[in-house]
């Protein structure tokens, strides 16, 4: 039952990412083209109306998720890969060095994610700052989760059996420990994705995202909020798109962890 829920949620989340990435190909108009009446409501040819500069909202929504989703995917995968590698190592060798790594990770956790990303954006372009912020703030969390799971598996029967067969530590980690914790790691990856979307949205709303004529869901929220009374769709549709993207990954993460019995 739970497995089926997680599978359905994974398919749904994957579809959300595909739509966000591929929507640009479906646009009929140039998303940056100006032409309609500012804040025009929905009408034939303009299904979602226009924004404050008279640009087609539907085209901007279709095209506005690509950069954000790509950035968030890159950030989540980087943070997760580093965290899984570090966690496997730290959990397997519970030594002084791995404790030092855990302490450094805790130090990073004390600083808020958005503050780290804002500092990174001083020196880096927006997408790079999202990746830097997610890695600095997310990798320590992944590392701790994976290290705990690995340390717990260190003396489990299936690991000791593999070691007794004469397999090397690294191969036991890759072939036995990693697959056994795929659920936890997948849930953690989904959580990293949610965090990096939140971070990307915050930075883009603050004006550190793509340069103005480029369409972006987060920037649309800031641009179109003052015109909410005139054309609500210009704000509500990109807000819904972001809510579906983050909500489906959060639900997937929740389904995966509760199946494994973790809180």
């Amino acid at each position: 039952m739970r497995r089926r829920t997680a599978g359905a949620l994974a398919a749904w989340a994957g579809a959300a990412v595909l739509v966000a990435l591929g929507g640009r190909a479906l646009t009929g108009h140039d998303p940056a083209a100006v032409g309609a009446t500012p804040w025009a409501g929905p009408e034939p040819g303009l299904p979602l109306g226009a924004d404050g500069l008279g640009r087609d909202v539907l085209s901007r929504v279709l095209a506005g998720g690509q950069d954000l989703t790509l950035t968030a995917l890159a950030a989540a995968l980087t943070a997760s890969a580093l965290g899984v590698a570090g966690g496997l190592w730290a959990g397997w060798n519970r030594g002084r060095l791995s404790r030092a790594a855990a302490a450094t990770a805790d130090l990073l956790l004390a600083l808020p994610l958005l503050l780290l990303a804002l500092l990174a954006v001083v020196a880096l372009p927006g997408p790079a700052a999202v990746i830097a912020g997610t890695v600095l703030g997310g990798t320590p969390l992944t590392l701790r989760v994976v290290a705990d799971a690995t340390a717990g598996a260190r003396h489990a029967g299936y690991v000791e059996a593999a070691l007794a067969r004469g397999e090397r530590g690294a191969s036991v980690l890759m072939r036995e420990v990693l697959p056994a914790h795929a659920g936890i790691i997948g849930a953690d990856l989904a959580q990293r994705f949610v965090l990096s979307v939140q971070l990307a949205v915050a930075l883009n709303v603050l004006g550190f995202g793509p340069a103005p004529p480029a369409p972006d869901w987060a920037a649309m929220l800031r641009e179109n909020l003052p015109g909410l009374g005139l054309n609500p769709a210009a704000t509500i549709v990109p807000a819904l798109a972001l809510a579906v993207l983050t909500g489906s990954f959060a639900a997937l993460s929740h389904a995966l962890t509760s199946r494994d019995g973790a809180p």
Partner: protein
Amino acid sequence: MFQLPRPAGVPVRAALLLAAASVVIFLCTAALPGDAADVLGGGRATAEELARLRAEQGLDRPLPVRYLDWLSGVLTGEPGVSLITGRPVAELVAERAAVTLALAVAALALGLPLTTALAWAAVRGPRWARPAVNTLIVTGAALPQAVVAAALVAWLSTAWGAFPPVSMLPAGEPPWHRPDLLVLPVLTLALPTAAYGAALLRGAIADVVAQPYVRDAELRGLSPVTVLFRYVLPMVAAPATRLFAVLLGGLVAGTAVVEILFGLAGLGELLVTAISTRDVPVVQNVALLAAAVVVAGLLVADAAAPEAVRS
């Protein structure tokens, strides 16, 4: 979830944390392509003028010297002067602190009880409501702040005409003169914070509720509220105070988004403007102030957590 290493005393750890934060902040701002002289020169200055500006600002000195110079300035209360406006940073911060403080305090005052209520409802609410509350917590914590802001403006401001969607608070006016302007920003901060907090607190409450003395109290017929306040909340005090520190950290940075979206002139808006105009002294000091607030929150959490319940 909130275990931090305790190699030294709490104040030592806080000082180390703050020192590390100041180094990170300084290195990030020092890594700027171009420097303060380019900002002051406005992009049209000749090479000689730039060199003169650099010498005036002390930018030709080595990095460690500049770092120590900044640090001693912070410690003696003279952290620097804005490159753009020429005004002391301390003055700019003092002018805007009230808005951010009002937002953060109100958001915490609303968010903490809401966190507790949500976490309790997820663990001990009516059985039929628990899945719904859990879904609310999971998806609520995942929503980007700007999405919450858009939803609240659409619902409360546009549909009901209840609160001004974009506030225009005159600079320097205390925010409590216009509390109606703060309602939407505070809700935007408090609601996702409460969902996030509840997601973290839920597990701790579930652990305590499983204890035999809680079931005893329930069987004795005590009301759920009495059980919550007398038997459950005291036992989750340690994780809850650390949770408070984590939420405070999120709020400190999160106010930036809310201030920009709702047009409030607070510290977050100051930081964001300074980053986009590359006003390095302002960025450094506001970021350090934010880090200091987070560290102070962690200190309070450590001091408040009773020794016996520490995990």
